[in-house]
């Protein structure tokens, strides 16, 4: 039966487009999402950031007006400053803490699985849950401040959620609690990837453990650090849910962040052009972080 068909159909090469038709059909979602949503959506947003769209998007060009207004809005400046402070501190602390915990777990300890489970479980929780728990623990009337005062430190003041100068610390405590576990796991994987002979060699040479970490292990783990760095940074840029749950940007505008600025501008203040300009700035930030990283990855692959 199949042989009868052979003669005619098999002589001509099939039309290129229709070869492996099923696989091409199955790739349609990828093409639609990649081109239609990611590329198209990004281009659309960037284009509309140069317009005066308010309630509805429209193409009336105003050049860089939106950006000028953005950079002279106090709320945006505060958002950027918060993000910068939160970003730098949380980056440094997450990396240090993550590496430190990973190094501890790598010391052939007992109950490693238990400790790892404990350090990582917050990562399974949403930022909303994280934010609400810490909001409660940091509550000045019932939380840490009241406990310290109850213990006799009657002048002890620690109410980060109500103090504009400290509010970032509140966010950091919660953010670190949620996110360090992930970095720890990545660092631990990196440590496990290091050849055991290195440890033997440094023991033979009589180099102390802490020194081995600093002069041998950390330089060897550079790629892991870079991955962790990219991860933490792009997570920081997205910081939104935590702020909404913990402080709603308050007190005042003390804990505003860019992602929240974009959301509020787009959906509550209905100033679309302004929101698009702000989100384009976020994209630029990510690009600034990402491009050197992508370049490095690319160069490594080449070698």
């Amino acid at each position: 039966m199949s042989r009868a068909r052979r003669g005619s159909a098999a002589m001509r090469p099939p039309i290129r487009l229709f070869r492996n038709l099923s696989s091409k059909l199955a790739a349609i979602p990828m093409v639609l999402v990649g081109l239609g949503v990611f590329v198209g959506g990004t281009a659309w947003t960037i284009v509309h950031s140069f317009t005066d769209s308010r309630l509805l998007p429209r193409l009336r060009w105003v050049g860089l007006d939106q950006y000028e207004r953005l950079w002279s809005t106090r709320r945006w400046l505060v958002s950027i400053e918060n993000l910068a402070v939160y970003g730098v501190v949380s980056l440094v602390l997450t990396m240090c803490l993550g590496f430190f915990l990973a190094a501890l777990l790598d010391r052939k300890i007992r109950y490693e699985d238990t400790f790892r489970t404990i350090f990582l479980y917050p990562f399974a929780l949403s930022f909303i849950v994280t934010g609400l728990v810490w909001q409660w623990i940091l509550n000045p009337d019932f939380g840490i401040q009241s406990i310290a005062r109850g213990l006799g430190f009657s002048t002890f003041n620690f109410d980060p959620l109500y103090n504009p100068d400290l509010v970032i610390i509140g966010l950091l405590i919660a953010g670190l609690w949620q996110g360090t576990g992930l970095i720890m796991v990545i660092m631990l994987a990196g440590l496990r990837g290091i050849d055991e002979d290195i440890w033997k060699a440094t023991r033979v040479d009589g180099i102390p453990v802490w020194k081995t970490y600093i002069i041998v292990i950390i330089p060897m783990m550079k790629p892991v650090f870079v991955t962790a760095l990219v991860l933490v940074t792009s997570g920081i840029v997205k910081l939104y849910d935590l702020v909404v749950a913990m402080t709603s940007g308050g007190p005042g505008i003390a804990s505003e962040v860019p992602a929240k600025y974009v959301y509020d501008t787009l959906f509550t203040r209905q100033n679309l052009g302004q929101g698009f300009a702000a989100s384009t700035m976020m994209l630029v930030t990510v690009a600034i972080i990402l491009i050197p990283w992508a370049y490095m990855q690319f160069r490594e692959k080449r070698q």
Partner: protein
Amino acid sequence: MTAAEMNMKLAVTPRGAKPRSPFAPRNIMLYGTLIVFSIYYLLPLYVMIVTSLKDMAEIRVGNVFSPPVDITFQPWVKAWAEACTGINCDGLSRGFWNSVRILIPSLIISVSVAALTGYVLACWRFKGSEVFFGILLLGAFIPYQVLLYPLVIILRELGLFGSLWGLVLVHTIFAMPINVLLFRNYFVAIPEELFKAARVDGAGFWGIFFRIVIPMSLPIFVVSGIIQVTGIWNDFLFGVVYTRPENYPMTVQLNNIVNSVQGVKEYNVNMAATLLTGLVPLTVYFFSGKLFIRGIAAGAVKG
């Protein structure tokens, strides 16, 4: 570093110097440090549990850490069935069921689409398929804020804005980069000769997918499923933007209950509600163990 490598490395036994006697000063310091950190990580869970079991009178006289004297489950009942958001007073149960109704189709669709796309990219490459894959991966790094409004427009055009199905679509779109990467990397490792053998045996695109590839790949489906369950359940931003209040997922409703300005704050109910919301991802986390780690290690690439 790929997820698979990372997972392999985690599976390796720990390294470093041999442990000495359990009570050597080194060990006391090591375990002491680990325990102190464990307390920091476990504290919020403890606080949530004890607070949710106290009544308001007890909360007002104590602090967040004091254990409950009279255990009461009333806050749990109230959080589940009676707490108010806006005009509705039927508790978090509404959000829970909304989340379930969002989760199940999103999970099925996003995992299926990602698996199929990964299969195309691994086994049925065509001219340009790698380019589309590259674009898709870049999409993982675009801040969501950039795409929020374009997606509003797309959903509106499709008539899905505000509905559960709109949100399902959004989850599917944003799940694609990381999950496609995951599946593609897994499928690429299947020996090429197996596909050749199957083609000689007369299996086509779908035959190979369903009869050969899927039965070989259950672990990766579980990993992808875990990423999706926690991701979709914990989502807040998309829930707020793309659904109407009656369809709000649990995280959004939780935030509305806890951070609502009207009425007296019922901290015990809030904590019960918070814990209820965290229960699903926590269950997934505690039961999936190593696979969860594999999932987030893979998710690491996503950032």
